[in-house]
């Protein structure tokens, strides 16, 4: 009896540690340790023949900053994140508002609409690779039906490949923005909209002055999630273009993967990943400061 009360009082005395302990252990093992380990190896290069690590100091970072492929990958990543994110947010929010009208059959269409999101990006890449095949791809056949007889070679022409990649990314991830914003939209109180209608507000004014401000927190949340995801796009590039032609679709993540897992330049790849982490942290902190989010209760 005494023992039980003693252990109870021990748990009560150490309640905080007991509750957050597992989380700290988990974070330490799976986040902090890998981060510190990869930071460490970013100052080394691995000699595969000798099987040992050679200390380079800031050598990998210096090489990255003077590497033209790194700068071209920054441009590719920035264009990809910028264009894809803007289109996905606009299209996702528009779809959320459209489907919020509770039209007949909308449940069925909504279910179809979110299908791309549940596919693995590598599979999406390979699937679109087949769809865009210049010989027998369904995509060219389809646009042939609407009068475009001599379409570009989507995956072999450097002028088009990045736009093709962005298009596929938009196709896959617009549903994500839609789902998040739609969920928020459905949860909004209906009396606000009814009052606006009674006061004679037009549908466009309701969207502009009521709907959008009320769903803005969900839009920002979804956009930041998608922005981070898009910033580290690798799998779609891997399946669709493998970074080419040339370096026209080599994103920072793909470049990091290529160096780490194709060329076994683990140190260089880690340094590149750290630069990405720094860029992402700065970028999204600034973004969060700039974007006004209206709190709704």
């Amino acid at each position: 009896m005494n023992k039980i009360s003693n252990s109870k009082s021990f748990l009560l005395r150490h309640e905080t540690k007991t509750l957050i302990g597992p989380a700290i252990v988990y974070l330490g093992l799976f986040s902090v340790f890998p981060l510190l380990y990869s930071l460490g190896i970013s100052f080394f290069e691995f000699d595969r023949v000798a099987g040992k690590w050679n200390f380079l100091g800031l050598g990998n970072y210096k090489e990255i900053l003077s590497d033209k492929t790194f700068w071209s990958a920054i441009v590719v990543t920035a264009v990809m994140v910028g264009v894809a994110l803007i289109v996905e947010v606009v299209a996702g929010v528009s779809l959320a508002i459209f489907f919020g009208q509770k039209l007949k059959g909308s449940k069925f269409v909504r279910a179809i609409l979110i299908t791309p999101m549940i596919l693995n990006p590598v599979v999406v890449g390979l699937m679109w690779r087949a769809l865009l095949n210049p010989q027998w791809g369904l995509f060219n056949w389809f646009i042939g039906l609407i009068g475009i007889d001599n379409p570009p070679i989507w995956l072999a022409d450097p002028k088009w490949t990045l736009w093709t990649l962005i298009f596929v990314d938009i196709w896959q991830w617009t549903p994500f923005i839609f789902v998040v914003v739609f969920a928020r939209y459905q949860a909004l109180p209906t009396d606000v909209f009814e009052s606006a209608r009674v006061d004679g507000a037009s549908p466009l004014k309701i969207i502009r002055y009521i709907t959008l401000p009320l769903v803005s927190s969900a839009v920002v949340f979804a956009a930041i999630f998608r922005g981070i995801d898009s910033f580290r796009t690798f799998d779609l590039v891997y399946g669709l273009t493998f970074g080419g032609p040339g370096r026209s679709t080599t994103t920072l993540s793909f470049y990091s993967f290529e160096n780490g897992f194709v060329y076994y330049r683990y140190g260089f790849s880690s340094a590149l990943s750290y630069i990405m982490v720094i860029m992402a942290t700065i970028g999204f902190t600034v973004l969060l400061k700039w974007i006004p989010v209206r709190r709704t209760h």
Partner: protein
Amino acid sequence: MKDQVGANATDSGVNRRDFLKVGATAAAVAGASSVGMAESASAASYNPKKFAGTTVKILLVDGERDQEGIKDKISEIQKTHGIKVEVTALALGAQLEKIQSVLHAPTSEYDIIDNLGFTVSGVVGGGLFTKLNDYIANKELTASNYNYPADFPAGQLDYTSRYDVANNKFGGKDVYLIPGMHSGSVIMFYRKDLLAAAGIPVPKNWDDYIDAARKLNSGKISGTTMIAANDVSLILVDWYARFASMGGKLMSGTPGAKNYKPNLTGATAVRAVQHMIDCAEVSPKGVGSFGFTESVDAFSRGDVALMLCWSTIAGSAFNPATSKVASKIGAVQIPGDANTSGRPIRGGWGLGIPKNLPQKRKDAAWMVMQYITSASFDKYQMDNYQTDPNRRGTYADAALNKKYPYLKVAGQAMENAKMLDVALIPECFELVGEAAREFNLAIVGSQTAKQACANAQASWEKILKRAGHLA
């Protein structure tokens, strides 16, 4: 006999008659000792059950049907050797990554690992595999009819078998790998019906090749196809076949002397790229995005007249179930040039036993490795899964040649094949990847052949300097 063939294969190639003679002899040696290794071996002190009760784990690459034959034979190995075999096959990238971690672990998870030829300098050169000479010489552990090295193409032995670790060079006397699960080189596939209808002979040099491709190119049929995507196979299959056959020498100097310099701006390198650019004009639309699969599919659909490809695809190209033109195609050696014969790249794999294993596991691994690289298994795997064999006896086997008419062509290509020069440094893939990127841009029209070669040269020099192979 082996040395004579080796000299021929390395210096001037082997003609068809020589190849068949050598192959027939090897086949006779292998055949005389019968298909079942254990039967003839029982006369010696070979004891296949010496390590009964153990488990041997094998790591292979997926997607090349290498594991199929082994899976079929697992119960037989259990019966004849008393050893349980487990096979893991991973996609190429994942397999290469796994090999790195397994070989550097305190104890290897796998007992037998299959290594791509282009990675041999990195893994075997790093001293990470067990030397096999003692096993091969040990009559108790090696069947008398194993027939190593006589039954293997000499060039292949110097690529995926023997390695001089002290001097970090291919070849030498020390055996670290046994060629397998499959070997392979590049041959030329052509449509017999189209060439005959147009009265065009099978191209024997590169000028004939592009002429034939242009003549055969029509609305429905493309003259040729290539692996022209941003893919290492652009270099390994299509560019190197042209470059080496035109008499090109890829590198000068040696890595050890720190004067290892590429010759990518030379006339031959530029000519080989230009030939690919010319071929792209008479290839299927979008050939610049064609990898291995797209190229082979286009040929098998009947859309293309000429194609260079790994000989290992011949099985599917000649199979009516997977090719619409199976009965209309032929396979020959790749074209040469005025003074040179076709010199395709040497491909293939080598099986080895990691050094970081306890002795007993190494011994058991050798017993299984011997089985899956035996003459009888090589024939079984070829006949059932049409992967390129490793042994001369299989290439020259009369019954198999009757069934698979391309086999002797593939065998001759194996004897003539040339190892990619840069395979002797661990940065091989990085170099090939950079060149593929530049040449791909030339093929899709973003730069000229000369610019592509100059850019590739600059990239290669940068990588070689960084790696310490060029001062």
